[in-house]
Each structure stands twice: as C-alpha cells, then as structure tokens.
C-alpha cells in the first residue's frame, strides 16, 4: 500500500518537486560564484564569506518551502475528495496518515539529494583560498533535518481540521497583534521575544534553521 500511496503522491507533486530539485541543485552553485583563490586581503575574504552567507539564507527558506509544498500536495487531494478514498481503505486513520507521512518524507529526500549533489559539484569546481573549507555533506544533512521538521509541522497542520489550523494561526496572529498594541502603548512588555526564543533556541523545534548556512567557511 505504501508504494501505491508513494506513487500517487509522486504524481501529484512531481512537477513542483522537479522545480524545487532544480533550485536545490542550483543554490550551492550560485553561492560560490564570488569565490576565487587569488591573493586576498582581510576585507576580500570577509566580503566573500558575507556573500556566501547571504546566499545561505536561502537554504532554510528553500527547506521550508519544499516542506510546505509537499505537505500541501500530500493532503490536498484528500481534502478535496472529502477523504472518501482514505475512508474506503481497510486501515485505521493513524495508519493511513503514517503512510502519507512516510511517502512525503521519501519524496523530500529528492531536494536533499539535489542540495548535496549541487554542493559537491560546487565544492569540486571551486578553488578555495587557503584556510577555507567546503562542507557539502554537513550542509545537506542540515538541510535534510530542517526540511524534516518543517514537513512534520506543515503535515500536522494540513492533517488537522480547518478549525485546528485556524486556532494555530489565530494564536500566532493574536500574539503579534497584542505585541503591536503593547508597542504602541509604549510599554516594555515583550510577548513575542520569549516565544521566539523558545522556538529558535535549543531545544526549540526551529533551532535547526538558525546559524550560519555556509557551504564554504573557515
């Protein structure tokens, strides 16, 4: 049954997956455009690393985008068909959701492999200045973990009812609105800051998205 579900999910998402894979392959190549092995001064190196770091911002964004698109295409047809296909299967709901989750994870491997291959090609094709190293495998591993977390989050939201999604978004939106009101009222109360810290500082779920996403670094 897993193979059938994987096949259907592949059919639904192959076009968009192809685009994501192309972007994933191209990103490492684009990020090393400014790298050259000449006799470089301190500011040249700083500028070069800053350029790579700027491109690096796109890795977590790409991981999140790939996860969001896959999560949406995983559940989209089920939602549109009122879950008749799923209900007709002789398996409990958790089993069905698990199969869908697994199939999505397998498809998510494609952009991860594309990032890895792109990073390997970019590293091999670039002559690095002394002291700098390429980290293609670790970068791909980090991309994979970020994509997994984002996929699981979006999958959980997509799998829930509209009410659940509404509550999640409502809580986030409400927090932002209250914070804005507090700011306008010139108070020093910071509601969003601690919340963000919980999300982005270890062991928060989004910690993997933070830090330097550098294919080339010291």
């Amino acid at each position, binding site marked *: 049954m897993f193979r059938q579900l994987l096949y259907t999910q592949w059919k639904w998402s192959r076009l968009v997956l192809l685009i994501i894979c192309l972007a994933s392959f191209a990103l490492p190549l684009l990020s090393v455009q400014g790298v050259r092995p000449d*006799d*470089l001064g*301190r500011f040249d*190196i*700083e500028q070069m*690393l800053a350029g790579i770091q700027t491109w*690096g911002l796109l890795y977590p964004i790409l991981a999140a985008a790939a996860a969001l698109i896959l999560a949406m295409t995983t559940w989209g047809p089920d939602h549109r068909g009122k*879950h008749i296909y*799923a*209900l007709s299967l002789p398996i409990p*709901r*958790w089993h069905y*959701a*698990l199969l869908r*989750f697994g199939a999505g994870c397998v498809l998510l491997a494609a952009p991860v492999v594309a990032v890895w291959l792109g990073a390997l090609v970019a590293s091999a094709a670039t002559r690095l*200045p*002394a*002291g*700098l190293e390429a*980290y293609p495998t*670790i*970068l791909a*591993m*980090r991309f994979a*973990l*970020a994509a*997994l*977390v984002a*996929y*699981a*989050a979006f*999958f*959980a939201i*997509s*799998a*829930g*009812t509209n009410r*659940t999604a509404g509550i999640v978004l409502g809580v986030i939106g409400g927090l932002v609105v209250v914070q804005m009101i507090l700011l306008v009222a010139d108070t020093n109360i910071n509601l969003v800051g601690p919340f963000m810290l919980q999300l982005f500082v*270890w*062991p*928060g*779920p989004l*910690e*993997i998205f933070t*830090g*330097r*996403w*550098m*294919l080339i*670094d*010291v």
Partner: protein
Amino acid sequence: MSRRLLCTALWLAACAAPAAAQTRAELSQRIARLTTAFARAETARLRADSAARARVTFDTIRAGPMRVLAARSIVRAVAPAVDSAWRALEATFGLSARIVGQETIAVQFWGQAEGNIPFDSPNTINLPAAPPTELVTRYVIQQGSRIVRQTEDTQLTSWLSPQFAPGGPALDRLDVVYVELATSPRSKARSCFVGDLVACRAALGLAGREDPVRAWYDAADRRAIVRRFGRLGGDVGRCQRDGPDEACEAALRLIPPEQLPRPLSPAAQLSLLQIVLDAGGPGAYDRLRSSAAAKHSIEERLALTARVASGDSLLSAWRAKVHAARPHTVEVSAGSAWAAVLWGVVLGFLALRSTRWR
C-alpha cells in the same frame, strides 16, 4: 567681408597677448591678495562663530575630571551618557583616564533647539537628532580615548595605529580575527595560526620592525604584495614579471616602513591589547604607559602590563582566545540533530492523532 577679417584679426591679437596675471610677478601678487582675503574671511568666520556661540546657553556636564559642553536643551539626554562614558574610560584607562580633563568635549544633536552651533574644536561630537543614550556614550568614549591617546608615547602609537577605545569591538569580534588568521595569504599569519609563536610576533608587528620587508614577509608574500601595486617600471615591474626576489624586496623598500601593510590587520593588534588589559586588571593601562615600561620593547611592555611571565605566555593566551572564538560553521551538533529528529517525530505523531475523521 573686411569687417569679418577685422574681427578675426582682433580676436587673434587678443589670444596672442598675455592674459591677466599670466606673468610670474602678477601671479604672485594675485596669490598674496587671495591669501589676505582668505585670512580676512577666516577671521570674520571665527568672529561670527564666536558670536553665534555666545548667543547660546551651554551647560557643562562633569563626570570625574571630564568636562562636556552641551546646549541646555540636550543636557538631560547627554548627562547620563557622559556618566557612563566616564565610568568606562576610568575602568579601562585607570588613572590615565584623568587626561580627558585636559580638554573640553562638546556635544550637539542635529535639530537641537539652539540650532547648529559652530565649534572650532576637534573634540566636537555631532550626532543625529534624538540619538539613543548608548550612541552618545559610545561617541563620548571614543572622543575621550582620542584625548588619552594623544599623550601616548611613540613606541606604543607606532605599534598600534588604530585608536583603542573601551567597549569597542576588540573582544566582541575575535571571530573576525580568527577568520583573518585562518585565511590570511601571508606566511607569518598562517604559521601563527598553526602555533608558531615567533611567526605570531612578526604577524602582530611585535618583532621585526627594524627590517619589516624581510622579517614580516617571505619571498612569495613580497611578490604577491608587489603584484597589487599596478603596472609600474623599475624594480616593481621586474618583480611583477617574475623577476628575482631582490627586485620585489627593493620594490617594497620604496614604501616607508611605517606604511608597510602588516601581515595581520590592526583588529588583531587591538584584540591583543584588549586581552592584555583584561589580564592585567586594575591599573593595567597605567603600567603600559608608565615611564618604566617605556624602556622595554613593546612585547615586554605588553607582558608586564598583563602580568605574565613572558611574551610567549601572552601570545599563547591570545592564540587560545582567538581559536576559541572560531565562528560556528554549518556543522550540526549532535544535540541539534537529535532535537530536530525528535521534533519531527513529535509533530508527525500529532498528525496521526488528528480528529479529522471523528
């Protein structure tokens, strides 16, 4: 026709005659006239500036011996910054911080009620409208540090070309020094990175100041530096055309020694000085600039200031701190990886428990 000819002849005659002030004597006279006029204008400007200042009511803010002049409308905003700045200066420079009292610092904000006041002092700080207190503090600290630096001896100032100011980026940016040390194309910096303290001395400009061309660079460095000069003739050209190292050496000797680029940037020297002052504790800066210290080499002075046994200990400590500040690369720690996997499982589990079909 004849009228056109006449006009042409007159025009040619006018061109052929010497123009006004073309002779040397006339030119000298004109320069003298302009110089006098400029001096008169400058005097008038100073008088006008002085009159403009006289119209404004200033308050003098005092913190220790430090005196800061500010227009009355901004005194409330400046006073806390002056207080913080003095405490920072005193904490770093110790008794030497009292030198700031020798000069008066003026602070003004853009758009202040009294308008822009023309000050004729290098100790004037012009800031944007309603700046945050931290910004005012930082600028007052920098100005105070500048006054202190003016009284440093030449050995110290020639070693450390940039101005050292407390609270500056010297320690916060050790990661930048790490990147520089790890990626510098200069042989001394690379050797220093891997632990050669003799090379560290040269890279930081602590040693080899008598003959920096040979002491700070190897042949490859010399050629690489000269290649950046642009196309020139003589020794520069010979060096650039893969000539002998002697040509590269001669080309580098065209640059005054004090202007030769050091293997490591001033940021590295600032970080060393900050580490020295931190290690030395209270009174460290006073020891650094004491007349007893001035008799020693710069390396010995720094070691005495830091109260360490030798320059080697000092450089080892500096290297250790720089290495500890290595920027975190893309690498994923085991904790981060497990946390991500765990969150993936938890969120996936939430999806399995969804009430969608109930």
